């Protein structure tokens, strides 16, 4: 469930790699590849097929073909480009005015206008609707009023009705214009709205969300053929009501697999044209077999080992630095993952604008320095075992064991693994700050903007700050970046904030996932969007 939300702007350096890797890539205005044919792709069972509900990778892969939003990301540069929006503007980074292009409709004929967006965002935000993507509305003014809390925690009383039904920050100006007021200035707002949680929904869809989930009413280049066949398949056909650039394949068939190994077997058996991922243990084999038909890209899924800073043992940053220095990331990656990850030496995905390598000075193995730092910190309590935490059933135990082995070898600290909690319990343990030792967690960006890797994880009191890290200077720098005049202007502040992390090490950065997709001989041009991942609508098939 390690969700991956948005995919990120690929900076100039990465573009070259992309170009060579996918044979020219393909942005929409390029006329590469002919249209037609049926593209059969691997997918897992989505959670929801509604923009307000679907927040997991399999859902997003389908929703992105069924629906379209205000902006989209350039396949190669990942720059934000207007899609349904005519313009997204603000003077103070707090009040944003959004103008829409006219003439777009949903598959059922309803217009895609300002109401469609306001309706959709309100629906997601209103807590009694219980929509997963309500989370993403958190920056819009009035969010607190549409979400109610249980007065006595988990107690017997039910949560009361929220004060308001609609977000106070959303205002319709005219049919094609509306304004969005944020709780606090945020320079990166335009990048966030390309996420499917911000895609519009038809009135008929919101009226019967359950039905819309089974038979989506989209506004994108494809529409569903029949219904969602749960656990079996989702078939899309080209939609006539779409006014933008048409999708390349006539038909996209998502075959649903519960087990990625089973999916890989199906690919080997010639039943799939694209698999957006490869089972870790088969990576080497896939690379050898499919070579030129494997697409690889440094990704932005972050795996880290957090320190419980609420424990005395980890309060001294030298201890944290020493532990990080004891780990040989590349060796673990090679042994356990067949090289499917890239060692991390920073806190922001390398592909992001503003990211720099080696922000972390303690992320290369250096046993001597580690021993020295540990000694300076007064050593490790004698006889105390280091408890390493990970959630059960996701294969984390393997590499965590290797981490433990390396720490034991370098610093002579014996370790034990605590890897038997299922994810829900594990996350609750995280929320309650009950870890008794370094813990494994991951992070995927919410939008292609540096900030997403910084504040949520390390800001004082931020939602996913599981270490309990708090640094006033860091918070200050983040605020400065958020209010900067433009996305570009925000970067220096964010970079300074990241530098603080590089020294203080509230978490040990482990690695970034490498994307690896494979495609069949039927595929003429495979397109990987730097932000939104495999773009099936833009992928073309060989025409015979």
């Amino acid at each position, binding site marked *: 469930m390690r969700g991956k939300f948005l995919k990120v702007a690929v900076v100039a350096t990465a573009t070259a790699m992309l170009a060579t890797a996918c044979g020219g890539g393909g942005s929409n205005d390029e006329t590469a590849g002919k249209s037609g044919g049926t593209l059969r792709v691997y997918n897992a069972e989505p959670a929801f097929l509604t923009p307000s509900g679907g927040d997991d990778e399999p859902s997003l892969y389908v929703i992105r073909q069924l629906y379209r939003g205000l902006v989209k990301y350039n396949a190669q540069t990942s720059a934000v480009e207007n899609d349904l929006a005519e313009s997204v503007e603000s003077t103070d980074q707090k009040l944003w005015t959004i103008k829409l292009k006219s003439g777009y409709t949903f598959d059922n004929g309803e217009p895609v206008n300002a109401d469609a967006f306001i309706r959709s965002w309100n629906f997601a935000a209103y807590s009694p609707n219980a929509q997963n993507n309500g989370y993403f509305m958190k920056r819009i003014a009035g969010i607190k009023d549409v979400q109610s809390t249980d007065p006595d925690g988990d107690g017997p009383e039910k949560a009361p009705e929220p004060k308001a039904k609609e977000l106070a920050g959303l205002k319709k100006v005219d049919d094609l214009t509306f304004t969005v007021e944020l709780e606090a200035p945020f320079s990166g707002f335009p990048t966030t709205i390309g996420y499917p949680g911000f895609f519009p929904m038809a009135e008929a869809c919101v009226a019967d969300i359950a039905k819309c989930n089974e038979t989506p009413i989209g506004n994108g280049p494809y529409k569903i053929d029949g219904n969602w066949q749960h656990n079996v398949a989702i078939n899309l056909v080209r939609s006539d009501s779409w006014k933008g650039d048409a999708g390349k394949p006539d038909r996209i068939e998502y075959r649903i697999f519960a087990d990625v*190994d089973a999916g890989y077997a199906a690919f080997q058996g010639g039943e799939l044209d694209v698999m957006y991922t490869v*089972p870790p*243990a*088969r990576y*080497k*084999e896939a690379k050898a077999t499919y070579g030129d038909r494997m697409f690889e890209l440094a990704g932005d899924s972050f795996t880290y080992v957090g320190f419980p800073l609420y424990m005395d043992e980890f309060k001294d940053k030298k201890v944290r630095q020493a532990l990080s220095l004891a780990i*040989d990331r590349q*060796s*673990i990656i*090679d*042994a*356990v993952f067949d090289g499917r990850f890239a060692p991390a030496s920073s806190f922001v995905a390398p592909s992001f604008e503003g990211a720099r390598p080696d922000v972390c000075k303690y992320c290369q193995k250096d046993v001597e320095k580690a021993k020295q730092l540990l000694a300076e910190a007064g050593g490790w309590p004698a006889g105390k075992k280091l408890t390493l935490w990970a959630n*059960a*059933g996701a294969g984390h*135990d*393997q590499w965590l*064991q*290797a981490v433990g*082995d*390396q720490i034991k*070898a370098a610093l002579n600290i014996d370790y*034990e*693994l605590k*890897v*038997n*909690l*299922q994810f829900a*319990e594990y996350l609750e343990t995280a929320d309650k700050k009950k870890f008794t030792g370094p813990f494994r967690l991951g992070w995927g960006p919410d939008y292609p903007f540096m900030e997403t890797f910084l504040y949520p994880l390390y800001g004082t009191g931020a939602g996913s700050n599981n270490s309990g890290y708090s640094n006033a200077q860091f918070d200050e720098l983040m605020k400065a970046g958020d209010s900067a005049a433009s996305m570009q202007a925000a970067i220096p502040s964010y970079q300074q904030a990241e530098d603080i992390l590089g020294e203080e090490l509230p978490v040990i950065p482990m690695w970034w996932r490498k994307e690896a997709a494979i495609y069949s001989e039927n595929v003429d041009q495979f397109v990987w969007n730097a932000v939104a991942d495999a773009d099936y609508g833009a992928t073309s098939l060989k025409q015979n």
Partner: protein
Amino acid sequence: MSDLTSAGAAVGGAPVTGDGPPIGAPGGEGKERSASLWADARRQLVRDPVFMISFFYILVVSSMAAFPKLWTSQDPRDCTTDRSRIAPSGEHPFGFDILGCDYYSHAIYGARPSMVIAVMATGGIVVFGGVLGLLAGYYGGWVDSIISRVMDIFFSLPFLLGAIVFLTVIKRQNIWTIAAVLFLLAWPTIARIIRGSVISSKDLDYVHAAKAVGASNGRLMFRHILPNAIAPMLVYATIVLGSFVAAEATLTFLGVGLAPPAQSWGIMISVHQVYFLEDPWLLLFPCGLLVGTVLSFILMGDALRDALDPKFR
């Protein structure tokens, strides 16, 4: 999986309905006959090469489980990723696993959890299932009704599904909980076997005779009736030991069994099964040990049944 039912059925007859010819056909001449039955059985077993080979294999595996140091001086926890997946060599006959741990010592130490789980769970079902079966069969009436209904509850849960549900719910997956879950789901089978043979031997003449001379209920049950039920129970227990060893591996594959850093054959198999095309030996060694163990238990059970069941003489 059907391992368990198959074990039940492999005992012969139909453990489910309890009708049909009683297993072991209690003859009625009592202790004298059963003494010679066991003596005969022992003689036949010692001469049976299949039984002896299986028995020897189980001895070997048990010694691995009990005294791993006899078999290897390596520390299975001494791992370094630099040696990941190095193929077998003279010094390291099983090579190294993906974390670079010596695979041979891993396999030796892996015997313990598998065997301990199987032995504990089997011991549990023999004692608990045996006693409940005895009580239900001996007293009948409402005692039987209650015990039978409780048996039904556990019996109607398909074995693997029940195990998955219990283990995911318990969330503490260690030797104890896995053994407990196997025990919980398997005891009704043995209780049924015992109940069936108790019912059929309850009416034997010598039991009536013992009753007539005023033997207590306890004495009747344990001295006179239980011995008749021992043979089918022993056969079933042997086979079920094998099923449990296999069940541990299957549960581990499904992610509800043991988890690293524990070491067991199940973990070795399920972690390395994805590599079996590249480095087949990573799968073959633990699988071979496991299959050998299960095979041995089943063959031993077969031989025991043949030896103890007069029908097969």
